[in-house]
């Protein structure tokens, strides 16, 4: 299996604090990899480093979009990274609160559509077709994540669980090959988490995605992921199948030990 994301020796310093310490990691085509670790371990920082929001202090980040060669994205801007096919959600939901669910997803189509100033003003057949395509695609994605009937609702007014799924739909709208989910089940009730789990596995199949997932809910991690990577204090401390990792004494001590009942 070829690796769609390979990260080597990534470190990130904030002043004196080393939030990531020489982390290596790979995500292969079609895989669901879970990134776990206690709060403050550096998981979100890792996401920010590979999506271009932060420039890592050291290390390289390579992605391999389908049908293309490996590209180093260490110095790319976040929008360029998304353009290459990485899409993400945020731990603290970052929707466009006063836009409708539909519009939120439409924004996700921005980087796959072309119309510029002239197109906007003239609004010729090409532009009109493109606009129509955006709306249709956005709506079908909403339906796919089970939010069809929320399409016309302003994001701010949607229930929490729906907002999380809306973020996923918005990310999918950018046509990613690698989807990064930052604690998608946080704040969801058990039923919603169950639905989310099903959604994630279904999306992988339907969109031929690879998924990197940060999650605290162990049941979800254990059941959806092919591989688990554990970080603590910015260092990778273990890696393997869910079964291997949950048997690792170091992991149990660092993480499962304190959260096994969560």
């Amino acid at each position, binding site marked *: 299996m070829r690796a769609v994301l390979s990260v080597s020796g990534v470190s990130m310093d*904030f002043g004196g604090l080393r939030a990531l310490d020489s982390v290596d990691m790979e995500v292969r085509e079609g895989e669901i990899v879970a990134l776990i670790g206690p709060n403050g371990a550096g998981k*979100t920082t890792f996401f*920010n480093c590979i999506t271009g*929001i*932060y420039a890592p202090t050291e290390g390289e980040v390579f992605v391999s979009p389908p049908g293309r060669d490996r590209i180093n994205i260490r110095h790319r801007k976040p929008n360029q990274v998304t353009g290459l096919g990485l899409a993400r959600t*945020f731990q603290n939901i970052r929707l466009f609160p006063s836009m409708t669910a539909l519009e939120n997803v439409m924004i996700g189509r921005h980087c796959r559509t072309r119309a510029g100033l002239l197109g906007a003003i003239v609004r010729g057949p090409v532009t009109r077709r493109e606009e129509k395509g955006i709306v249709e695609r956005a709506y079908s994605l909403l339906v796919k994540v089970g939010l069809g009937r929320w399409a016309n609702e302003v994001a701010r007014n949607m229930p929490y669980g729906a907002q999380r799924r809306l973020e996923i739909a918005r990310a999918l709208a950018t046509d990613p090959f690698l989807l990064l989910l930052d604690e998608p089940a946080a704040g969801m009730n058990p039923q919603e988490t169950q639905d989310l789990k099903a959604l994630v596995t279904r999306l992988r199949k339907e969109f031929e995605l690879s998924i990197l997932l940060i999650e605290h809910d162990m049941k979800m991690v254990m059941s959806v992921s092919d591989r688990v990577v554990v970080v603590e204090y910015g260092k990778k401390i273990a890696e393997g199948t869910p079964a291997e990792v949950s048997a690792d004494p170091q992991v149990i001590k660092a993480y499962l030990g304190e959260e096994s009942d969560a």
Partner: protein
Amino acid sequence: MEFYLEMLIAGLIRGAIYSLIALGYTMVYGIIELINFAHGEIYMIGAFTGLVVAGLLGASGLPTLGILVIALVAGMVFCAGYGVTMEKVAYKPLRKASRLSPLISAIGMSIFLQNYVLLAQTSDFVPFPRLIPEFKFLEPISHLLGSSDLVILVVSSLVMVGLTLFIRLTRLGKAMRATAQNQKMAMLLGIDVNQVISLTFMIGSALAAIGGVLIASHSGQINFYIGFLAGLKAFTAAVLGGIGSIPGAMLGGLVLGVAENLPIILSAFFADIGLNIDIPNDYKDAVAFCLLILILIFRPSGLLGRPAIKKV
């Protein structure tokens, strides 16, 4: 050679005034992250207050230096009053509003204060009496350093040292620093943030008043519009030094003051080496703005400021 030295000193004098005004910008910015657009107007009001004092006391027979001191004090007191009033009316209710709102409010305040002085006083340039006597001991070098130059340098140095000590050593100064660093935390520690903000406006305004009275007496005339350009220049100085940084504001003012003489200096330099390139001196204002744009693009944290990290 003498000419260049002259220009350097003239630049430093102007720079010292910029520094005094820039301190107000930087202190306010440090605490509430607002570019107080109307700060230049406070400086102008300081100059006018000085004018009123000078006019009232002109016939009283007091020595001019005494009048200067009274004018400075009156300017400081009244400007401090204008400063806090302005904060209460135009900025305080907007603390939680979006960023644009207080900025627009500040622009409105600036236009308001200009026209208030225009209506209350006059729209023309008015002569300002010389409140600084000629010092005998400066006569031999008076073409280089006049007595008003000396007074400006001395007063502004004293003020800046005083301010630095105040902020370093006193309880209120420490409260100001704490609030600048983290307002929420300061509040939790029992610091009265509102009081600190008022104090900041008072001090900043008082410093601007000193600048206003001194420069008025130095240049000999004022009008209601002088605050606009001076304010912009001082803001440039604050940004140049690193906005939020007090030593930065001082340094930025001096650098800007000297840099503004570049058109003259360069013209003279070209003439010296036999080139005939004359840069109109009116471009000195453009120098300041170009400098401002360049710093903001290439080093937005200024000479002495710290770069900010965005949080996701």
